[in-house]
Each structure stands twice: as structure tokens, then as C-alpha cells.
């Protein structure tokens, strides 16, 4: 992490935020390597928790009140609703594990590592500019976004792709809070709404796809192509 | 245009029309002698024409009006050609109307019409003859044009009388380009007038003939005109040769009519020599297969172009 040098003389809040950030990164790595769908969902919920934590800390330490709302929003949406929905879906569609990843796990890990380094390098100049206590976590936010991107690329099952997508949203949200003390409320609401609707549409989709393809395996969805 | 001019003009045409069959007869006589045959009388062509004129014309059922018009057109074309060519004198008022290129065009017209007439009946031989005639034509015509060009480059004019006039005026000089052109012209002459080695004027062996195949269906006065025309054509060609290569002795410019009296015997002399030479060539050479003909003519064409190039390179 870019700010190891000054860890000692950082205020508690900042340390907490760093902690949350580290947890977030750790969780996304875990998701990258996780095969079982249910635990994937749990990890996602964990991400949500970390997110809420960091947001609250930021809100408290900076007195940005609207952040409390967004924290609440996150709590409801990402810790409760979405995991619940996903659990329901997985049960209803009785999906077990995402059998095979396209690239085997260790390789994915290595690539993930490279991606993280790249993200940090990318964030370096930006966090120099940031005035927030949380600036140094911007790199982590980017890393999370890219890791979930990687996860979407490597997964077979529709549902794990969706989870990757949501994880990406988490990364973005984290970036929003860390780089700037959160986006304006309207925007936040809009984003939240979109995510919610999106997930429901995903849900609808799973059933249609299941009806049509008898499975959520994306292998079956490669008929439209140029060859 | 002066009185002398008109006189030269009319005399030239008259001489051509009258002497042409005689010249043909002379050539045939020479050929007979050279091949140890007893020669037909000199006036044989006239007799033939006269006989044909008295006959009753028989025409195929499938003949169209075109078929009947063509002989007159041919005759007209050849006579007009004779009016352009300086056979006796270079002071030809009519020659203003058409230069050497037009002359070549005139020959082409004649060829096209006779070929059309040949196709008109719709017999196998007719169309075959037309095809071969046109084949010979499209190789011989450009060669002739090139020959004329060589001369006109030397003289800076395409009007035959002017060319002849200029050439005759010069002191005797060697023109290598003209030498090339001369050979080419000779070959064209043989080909165009259905002589050996391209065609045999006296053959009726169907598969070898060209000119005869085209006129198979003609009879009586039509045939007479055609025979006359071909005699006239030969005469014209020979006169072109004279005008280009040995123009001496022509009545030049605005000279007095007496010069014509001097020019006429000279012309006859040239004709005698030319006829003999022609007969000699025909006797010593054998007829080519029809598809050797293109090579022969292509050679002529090449020679003519070479003449032109030489003219440009050496300026002589």
C-alpha cells in the first residue's frame, strides 16, 4: 500500500479506512479465487459491510452528513437486499458451484496481482492531488474495479458474472467515497436505483435463460458470432 | 483550276479506264510466256467484258437490292480513285477533294461493299470469301497507309499530286525509308489485287480462292463491271507505285499540254515494265496457305512502319 511510510502518525479514522480498504481488496481477491457460488455471494455481502464501515468512518471523521444516507443505502442494498436476492436465486435455480474458470485459479491470481500493481501506479498521481483523508485508498478502489472486471472475464456462469458486476459497483462506490466524499445525493440515488433495477432484471433473465438453455452456463450462449 | 488541269484530269481518267484491261491482258500474256504457255491475245479482257455485257443477268433468289447496286458503286469508286492518282500529270483539280488518306478510304469502301455483296446471297463460299477479303484488307490497308505516310513525311503533304510533284522535282537521291516502303507497297499490291502468292486470279478451286469466291454469284453486266473494276484497281495501284517511287516524266505543275503527250508514252513504257515484273514475281513464287497470308501481310506492315521509323531516325 502506497502510504506505509506514514502509518504510525495517521489518525485512527484513516487507519480504520485503510483497514476497510485492505479488507475490500482482500475480499475481491477471495472472490476471484472462489468457486462456490454461495460463498461468492457471502463474500460480496462482506464487501458491502466493508464499504458501509468505511463510509460511516468517513462520514464521522469529516462530518459529511449525506454520507450517512449513502451508508444506509449501501447497508440496505448491498448487505441485505442483494445478497438475499442472490441467495434466493441460487436456491431457486439450485445452482451449486461454478465448475471451471476459463483461466485456472493460480494464473488468475498472478494476473490479478499485476492488475493491482497497475492500478496503484495509476492511482499514484491522482492521490497526490486528493485532499481527503482517504485519498490513498483510491488505488485500492481502482484495483477492486479491475479485479472484478477480471472476475467477469474468467467466469462461466451467468450468475457469477453478475456478482462480478456488482462487485465492480462496490469498487466504484468505494472510489466515490474515498476520492471525493461521495457523489451528490441525486446521483447516488440514481445509481442505487439503477443497480437495484438491474439486479431485478438479471433475476428475470436467469429464469428465462434457464427456461431456454436448461442451464446458466455461458458456453451455451455463443451462437451469435462471425464464424 | 486551269484548262490544262481539266485536260490532264479527263485524260488521266480516260487513259486509266481504257488502258486498265489492256494492262491486265499484258500481265496475263507475260505470265503465259514465262510459263511456256501459248498466250491469249492482248485484248482478251476487252472481249470478256464485251461478252459479259451482252449476256442476260441471272441473280440468286436471296439477293437483296444491295447486291445489284454494288458493282456500280465499285466501278464508281475505282474511277474516282483513278481521278485522284497522278498517272499522267500532277496538275489534278479533282485531287483537292481527296488526298492519299481518302484514297485509302476509297479502297476500303470498295472492299467493304464487295464483301457485303458477297455475304448477301448467303452461300458458304460467299461469306468465306468476304471473311478472307476483309482479313487481307485489315492487314494490307494500314500497311498501304504507312507507305503513303512515309512519302508524305518526306514531302510534307498527303495530297498525292503534291507528293509526286515534290519527289519528281528532287534530284535523284537515295531514300532508305522509301526503299522499305517500296517493298512493303509491292507486297500490299500483290495482296490487294488478288495476285499470287496471296490469291490466284485464275483459280476456281473453291478452298483457295478469295476474290473469285466473292464474285461467284455475279453474272453478265455486273460481272463485267466487276472484272473491269479489278483491272482498274490493279492499274490504280501500279500508278500509285509510279507516283511514289518513280514519278519521273509526269507532266508537272502548270506546264503546257504538250507535256502530256510526252508523259503518255512514258507511262505506257513504265506499265510494260511493271507488268512484266509483276508476271515474273507471280511465276517464280508459289501461292501461300491462307493462314500464311497474315504473316506475309504483317511483314509488309512491319516494313512500312520501319520505313516510317527510319524516316524519323535518319531524317531521310
Amino acid at each position, binding site marked *: 500500500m502506497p502510504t506505509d511510510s506514514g502509518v504510525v502518525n495517521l489518525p485512527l479514522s484513516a487507519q480504520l479506512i485503510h483497514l476497510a480498504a485492505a479488507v475490500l481488496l482482500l475480499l475481491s481477491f477471495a472472490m476471484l479465487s472462489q468457486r462456490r457460488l454461495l460463498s461468492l455471494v457471502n463474500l460480496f455481502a462482506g464487501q458491502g459491510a466493508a464499504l458501509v464501515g468505511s463510509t460511516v468512518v468517513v462520514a464521522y471523521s469529516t462530518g459529511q452528513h449525506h454520507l450517512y444516507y449513502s451508508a444506509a443505502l449501501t447497508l440496505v442494498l448491498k448487505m441485505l437486499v442483494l445478497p438475499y436476492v442472490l441467495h434466493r436465486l441460487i436456491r431457486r435455480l439450485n445452482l451449486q458451484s461454478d465448475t471451471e474458470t476459463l483461466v485456472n485459479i493460480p494464473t488468475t491470481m498472478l494476473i490479478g496481482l499485476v492488475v493491482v500493481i497497475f492500478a496503484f501506479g495509476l492511482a499514484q498521481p491522482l492521490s497526490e492531488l486528493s485532499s481527503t483523508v482517504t485519498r490513498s485508498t483510491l488505488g485500492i478502489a481502482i484495483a477492486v474495479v479491475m479485479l472484478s472486471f477480471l472476475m467477469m472475464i474468467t467466469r462461466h456462469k*451467468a450468475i457469477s458474472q453478475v456478482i462480478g458486476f456488482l462487485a465492480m459497483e462496490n469498487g*466504484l462506490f468505494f472510489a466515490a467515497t474515498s476520492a471525493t466524499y461521495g457523489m451528490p445525493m441525486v*446521483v447516488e440515488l440514481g445509481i442505487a436505483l439503477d443497480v437495484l*433495477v438491474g439486479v431485478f432484471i438479471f433475476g428475470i*433473465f436467469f429464469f428465462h435463460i434457464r427456461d431456454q438453455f436448461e442451464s446458466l452456463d455461458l458456453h451455451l450462449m455463443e*451462437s451469435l458470432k462471425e464464424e | 483550276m486551269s484548262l490544262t488541269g481539266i485536260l490532264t484530269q479527263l485524260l488521266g481518267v480516260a487513259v486509266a479506264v481504257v488502258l486498265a484491261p489492256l494492262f491486265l491482258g499484258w500481265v496475263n500474256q507475260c505470265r503465259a510466256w514465262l510459263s511456256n504457255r501459248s498466250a491469249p491475245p492482248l485484248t482478251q479482257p476487252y472481249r470478256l467484258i464485251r461478252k459479259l455485257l451482252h449476256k442476260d443477268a441471272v441473280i440468286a433468289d436471296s439477293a437483296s437490292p444491295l447486291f445489284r447496286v454494288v458493282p456500280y458503286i465499285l466501278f464508281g469508286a475505282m474511277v474516282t480513285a483513278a481521278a485522284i492518282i497522278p498517272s499522267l500529270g500532277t496538275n489534278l483539280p479533282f485531287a483537292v477533294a481527296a488526298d492519299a488518306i481518302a484514297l485509302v478510304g476509297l479502297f476500303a469502301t470498295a472492299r467493304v461493299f464487295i464483301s457485303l455483296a458477297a455475304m448477301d446471297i448467303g452461300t458458304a463460299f460467299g461469306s468465306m470469301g468476304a471473311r478472307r477479303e476483309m482479313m487481307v484488307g485489315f492487314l494490307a490497308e494500314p500497311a498501304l497507309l504507312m507507305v503513303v505516310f512515309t512519302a508524305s513525311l518526306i514531302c510534307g503533304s498527303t495530297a498525292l499530286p503534291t507528293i509526286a510533284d515534290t519527289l519528281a522535282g528532287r534530284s535523284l537521291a537515295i531514300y532508305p525509308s522509301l526503299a522499305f516502303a517500296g517493298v512493303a507497297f509491292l507486297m500490299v499490291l500483290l495482296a490487294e489485287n488478288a495476285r499470287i502468292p496471296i490469291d490466284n486470279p485464275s483459280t476456281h478451286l473453291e478452298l483457295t480462292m478469295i476474290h473469285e469466291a466473292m464474285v461467284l454469284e455475279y453474272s453478265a453486266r455486273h460481272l463485267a463491271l466487276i472484272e473491269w473494276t479489278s483491272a482498274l484497281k490493279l492499274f490504280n495501284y501500279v500508278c500509285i507505285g509510279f507516283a511514289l517511287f518513280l514519278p519521273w516524266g509526269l507532266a508537272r505543275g502548270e506546264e503546257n499540254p504538250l507535256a502530256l503527250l510526252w508523259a503518255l508514252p512514258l507511262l505506257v513504257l513504265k506499265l510494260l515494265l511493271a507488268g512484266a515484273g509483276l508476271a515474273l514475281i507471280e511465276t517464280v513464287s508459289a501461292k501461300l496457305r491462307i493462314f500464311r497470308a497474315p504473316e506475309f501481310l504483317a511483314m509488309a506492315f512491319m516494313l512500312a512502319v520501319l520505313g516510317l521509323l527510319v524516316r524519323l531516325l535518319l531524317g531521310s
Partner: protein
Amino acid sequence: MELLILLGLPLFGAALMALVGERRWAPEVNVLVSLATFVAGCALTARVIADGPMLVWNEQFFVDPFNVFLVALTAFISLTTSLFSRTYMRIEEHHGKLSQRRLRLYHSMFQLFMFTMLLALLTNNMGILWVAMEAATLSTVLLVSLYRTKASLEAAWKYFILCGVGIAQALFGTILLYFAAEKVLGGDGMSALLWTHLNAVKGQLEVSVLSISFVFLLVGYGTKVGLAPLHNWLPDAHAEGPTPVSAVLSGLLLNVALYAVIRCKILVEGSIRSKLPGHMLMAFGLTSVVVAAFLLWRQKDVKRLFAYSSIEHMGIITFAFGMGGPVANFAALLHMTVHSLTKSAIFFAVGHASQKTGTQLIERIRGLLVLSPTVGWGLMLGALAILGMPPFGVFASEFLILTTAMRDHPWATPVLLLALGVAFGAIFSRVQPMVFGEPSGQPLPHSPSLVPVFAHLALVLMLGLWIPPFLAQWYRLAAALIG
């Protein structure tokens, strides 16, 4: 006021349709709503012509020359599309491809889509812009998968995932933008996301942040524009959705996405004072043109064919915007207009054609001219227009673009021309046998509605020969704005 109506109507329409969308008279209502929207759009346009650009509702919404003509265009095409879909959907229903419930879904989503388009165009807030784009994706996803066939589901899924991911990048870009802006404008309240404010202070924005954020925005919205190599969702979605949807996707969505990209480009270019964003756009544009032009040769499905042609034309427009300068921007805007009109017209014709022949496979569609002269001529003329044949307007814009390219980037001209030639061969060699030759197909239960087709083509023809002064004036102003 017009603005409120303009935005309110489609929203209301969506709600209404959600309730009564399956009724017999629903299509007519749909048409009426669109008509009203169009009228409101015209009123707004007139207002803007009268008294210039405007900012309303504490600057949350604004209208300037750049978006006003896009608004008018959007409203117009939504009107014609609703007219077209009226008969088209009836026939689909008659063929038993759609149930009542689906029709309801279709109608309400259609109106919702229109709302999101207009919102995206009119909002002054980059955040709202993002929200609207995302909403547009969501509403169209359901439209694409309307038939619930395997192919349509697959297409919708790819569309959803790819555009979702893309749009996420765009969000990140927006965040970075905000991050840079709040230093200058202060984080409190909205102002740091308002385009007008950003534009005012773009000179002071942080360069490194903006360049990075532009990359994210470009990749994000570029995915929706369908720039190669981010285009892969586009042909599938166009080919598998119902034809009216393909028409609005090609005719509107791509434009609006490009509009978003250009808005960002204006800010970024103003800030980092280098040609880099322009060059990125040009690179994307050229790649798209070339890739699409060659892929056209592999198409067997007619709607897919024209989807690729959309990619090609978006590439041309992007390239033109990338070059920048008054002429190129003018040409790009003109090309946006004529492309939307022509392409939607083509999709209308294609829709009826494939209904008549009962297939979208090119080699099975034959002899339209005999089958139904209007459809045949519509398709033929539309194809020729989109191929840049004078006297249609597409040629006018391509002429300007090419000549500008010759001046500013001579190296690019041969590439463009080659691609245009290849595309011509590809499309025309497929359209001609469809239109000409021996017919194959059956009569339709409802007579096709081709008024929209010829209305569009007439407009395009007019733009090729004469551009109304006020329109030219807009284009000029907008071009100046884009810089």
C-alpha cells in the same frame, strides 16, 4: 415549461402503457403520446430559435444548439417509429410471435426509452446523464429480449453485460471528473457536476485526472456508441430485437451515447489543451470503419448487415469529431442527422421485408420489388442513400468529412475511401438481389406502413440538395461549441 412537458409526456406515456398497453387502441395512444412529445420538442426548438440557449431548474437542465437538434431528431424519429411499430407489431402479433403482455411491456418500455433519451440529452448534470444512459440500457434490454427466443436472450445478455460494464467505466470516469471539479468548484451541492460550470472552468481542471477520467468515459460511453473493438454487443442486439427497437437503437441510442462522449471530449480537450482526445476518437473511428466495412462481407442476416453499417457510420462520425474544427464538426453533426434518418428508414423497410418473406436471412429474401414495390424501393433507395450515393444527404456529409480529412490528415483519406468502397460492394451486393429478382414471400394481414420510410428518405434527399438556413445555423453554432 416545454421542457417539463417534453420530459413528462414520455414518462407519463410509459406509466400509462404499463397499465393499458395491451388494449387494442394502445398503439394509437402510443402514437399520440409520441406525437405530443414531438410537438413539445418542436415548441422547445422554436423557443430556442427565438431566444437562444436556456438553463432551467437551478441549472439542472439546459438547451443549447448542440442538444436541441438532437432533441428534435429524437422526438421525430420516436414519432415515426411509433407510427411504424403500430402496424408492424400488429402483424407480429398476428403471426403469433408476441402476446398481449409482451405488447404492453413493449409499449411502456418504448416510452421509457424515449424518456431516458430525452433526459440524457437535456440534463446539465453529468451524473444524471450517466443515470439516464444506464436507464436507457435497462429499458432496451427488455425490448431486445422481447421475443424470449434463445438468440434474443443471448443477444440481450451480451448487450446487458457489455454495456453494463462499459457504463460502469463511465461512472468511474464521472467520479474522477467530479473529483477533479470539486477542487475548483467545491464539493458542496451540485455545481461540480454541472456541465455548464465545468465548461466554464475547464481551463483550471487537473490535467492528469481529466485525461484518466476521459479514458474511462470514452471506453464507457464508447461501448454504447459501438466503437470497435467494443462493438460486439451491437450487431446481436440489433439483429435479435424487434425491428422498431433496432431502428431506435441505431437511430437514437448510438447518437445519444456519442453525444455524451462529445460532451466529455469538450471538457477534457479544453482542460488538457492537447489533441490527444481527438486522436483517440479518430483512432476509434478509423478502426470501427475498417472493421465494420470488412465484416459486412460476412453477413447473412439482413438486420445484422445494417447493424454493422451503423458501426461503420458511427466510426465515420467519431472520426470527424476527432478531427475537430468547424467544418468537420459541422459534417459530423449533419452525418448524425442523416444517418439516423436513413438507417431507421432502412430498418422500417427491412422489417416489413422480413415480415413478408418470413425470414431475416438475406438469401431467402428475394424480389421485393415484385412483392411490394414500396418496400422494395424503400429498401433500395435507403441502401443507396446510406452508401453515400448522391443526391442523398449522406453524401453531403461524407464529402465534407473526406475533404477535411484530405486537408488535415491525408494519410487517413485512403483508408476511409477504401473502407467506403469495400462497404459499398458488400452492402450493395446483398441489397440488390433482395430487391430484384424473382419474388419469395406471402402477403401481409395488415398493409405495411411505409409513410415513415419515405418521409425520412425525402428529408435525407432534401438535406443532400439544400440545408435549411436555420439548421445550418445550428450546426455552425454547435460546431463552434464543440470546437
